[in-house]
């Protein structure tokens, strides 16, 4: 398989495998926990390589899974002591693990496959040269096999335990009452995440794994609020970003992993700005409209409250409005115009009078 096929294919597979898990991690508020895990697997990976006397895939997976288990357990234990908060617990454990890994790398073998750059941003560029040979037959790039396997694993994991994952994510108490242990689901998810991280680690490095895990899911969450849509959508977003990133990286001759993550960041930015429901632009537009309606509502409530009171004469004068409500003349005009247009008030010699629909509106607004 040539690099022109193997590299983008690996990218898409890595992004898909990562994105599959992202939705649950985002909804469980474990984004930083996955950041911690992807860093903390380093010492396990190195230790595995040391024991296997070379970059053995299986030893790497085993060591990394153990390191991830240590990390998750240590963070949970630190939280339980109540001596530090959750964020600090994460911030104590993962740099320590990462530092340990770095020391191991420099200490044991500086000539090993893992150089500094590979740890931080992987070497997806070279995946085509690392082929999987079985019975003397070249079966294509190892990374394609590994990442396909991880995609399948994650798909199976989510498919089989969908109900349990969903229940423990939204209502851990209910899940426990129904006999689904939230702790077991939690550790299982962490295990699958750490295995995925190891696989992705060699392609895109420690920090960028996190981006591919959580950012597509976060982007999808801005576009839909249905979990069943969110998961496939995040996979599509991750895969598309991988392809765009590959093209960009080739064009500007820069890191493919970096370009993939930049692409996913851009997609997130677009969703953040333009999502129809959550987007900043849609929200601003909605607020603008709301502001006009609410100003008119405030006006009728104000008139309604003072109707029949001794000061109603003064309170209903158009001049008083700016003064009493501390509104700018422009805002007052907007409110009066809006309320008139809706037929809530009529103007009579410098005063505003509520109409029956106007009174009804005020009652409705206050009754809610």
């Amino acid at each position, binding site marked *: 398989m040539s690099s022109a096929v193997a590299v983008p294919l690996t990218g898409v597979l890595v992004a898909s495998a990562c994105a599959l898990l992202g939705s649950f991690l985002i909804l469980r508020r474990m984004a930083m926990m996955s950041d911690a895990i992807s860093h903390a697997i380093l010492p396990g990976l190195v230790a595995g390589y040391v024991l296997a006397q070379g970059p053995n895939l299986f030893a790497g997976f085993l060591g990394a899974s153990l390191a991830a288990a240590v990390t998750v357990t240590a963070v949970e234990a630190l939280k339980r002591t109540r001596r530090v908060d959750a964020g600090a617990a994460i911030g104590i454990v993962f740099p320590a693990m990462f530092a340990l890994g770095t020391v191991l790398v420099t200490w044991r073998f500086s000539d090993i496959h893992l150089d500094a750059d590979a740890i931080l941003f992987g070497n997806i560029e070279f995946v085509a040269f690392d082929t999987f040979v079985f019975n003397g037959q070249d079966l294509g790039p190892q990374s394609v096999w590994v990442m396909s396997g991880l995609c399948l694993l994650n798909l199976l994991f989510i498919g089989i335990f969908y109900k349990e994952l969903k229940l423990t994510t939204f209502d851990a108490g209910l899940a426990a009452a129904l006999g689904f242990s939230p702790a077991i689901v939690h550790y299982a998810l962490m295990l699958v995440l750490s295995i995925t991280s190891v696989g992705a680690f060699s392609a895109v490095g420690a920090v960028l794994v996190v981006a591919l895990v959580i950012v597509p899911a976060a982007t999808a969450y801005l576009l839909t609020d249905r979990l069943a849509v969110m998961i496939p959508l995040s996979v599509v977003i991750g895969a598309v970003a991988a392809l765009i990133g590959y093209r960009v990286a080739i064009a500007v001759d820069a890191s493919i992993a970096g370009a993939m993550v930049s692409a996913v960041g851009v997609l997130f930015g677009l969703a953040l700005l333009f999502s129809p429901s959550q987007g900043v632009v849609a929200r601003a537009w909605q607020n603008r409209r709301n502001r006009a309606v609410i100003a008119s509502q*405030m006006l009728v409530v104000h008139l309604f409250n003072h109707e029949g009171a001794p000061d109603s004469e003064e309170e209903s004068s158009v001049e008083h409005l700016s003064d009493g409500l501390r509104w700018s003349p422009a805002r007052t005009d907007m409110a009066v115009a809006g309320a008139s247009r809706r037929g809530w008030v009529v103007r009579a010699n410098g005063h505003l009078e509520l109409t029956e629909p106007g009174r009804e509106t005020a009652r409705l607004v206050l009754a809610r």
Partner: protein
Amino acid sequence: MTHAPLFEHAPPGTPVPAVSLRDLTVAYRETPVLWDVDLDIPAGSLTAIIGPNGAGKSTLIKAALGLAPLAAGSVSIFGEPYKEQRDLVGYVPQRGSVDWDFPTNALDVVMMGTYGRLGWIRRPGKAQREVAMRSLEQLGMADFAHRQISQLSGGQQQRVFLARALAQDAELYVMDEPFVGVDATTERAIVDLLRELQARGKTVVCVHHDLESAPDYFDWLVLLNVRIIADGPFAATFTPENLSRTYGGRTHVLGRLDHEAVAREAQEIELRI
């Protein structure tokens, strides 16, 4: 709305209400949580603000203290804007609003009450320490001055907060649910304090949740549910009709009041299904 005899508590020569809200609407993210509130709280009164959850009680006092955004209307404290009267106001936030594991002791928290008068950068000295000690003594907390705050009981923590407000040496004290989750001793201490403050001509405004104890503690009442339902002298205002107007149809109120919360809740429920 009653605007009837307002100033029966006011000392002669100061007919200005302690708190005066005019056409006040408070909105979070463009959504009003208080609608067109007109309210005068007479100087020298012990006022309770009562209403159901989500009625905007805390929002009302936060607006009065310049801590919430005003969509319309104005606030005055003793006739002037809050900004100019800050030194006249003592504030007791909800006890649950801070992290009690913060590394400090009771005396130090109480000294924070003097920071407002001190202003930027100036350090508290001996005078401030004495003020803080006196405030603690007044609440029976002198023995706990050097106790780490996480080692105090809930009631003792509440008394520390009250002492901090006392150290502000204010004319108006605004308290958010001071009676929540306190023991009998603390409840007694707070009531005594309220009475003593009133005797010294101070004004106290409390957000209160307990309808049963309210008549014993307060002499002025504000019933609030998104707008002012009724306000006035306690006995005259604390009527079954007013209370049912305040609390009645409450589920309906909650149902549409907080758009954001409802939308999020709905989203979560939908995801769950």
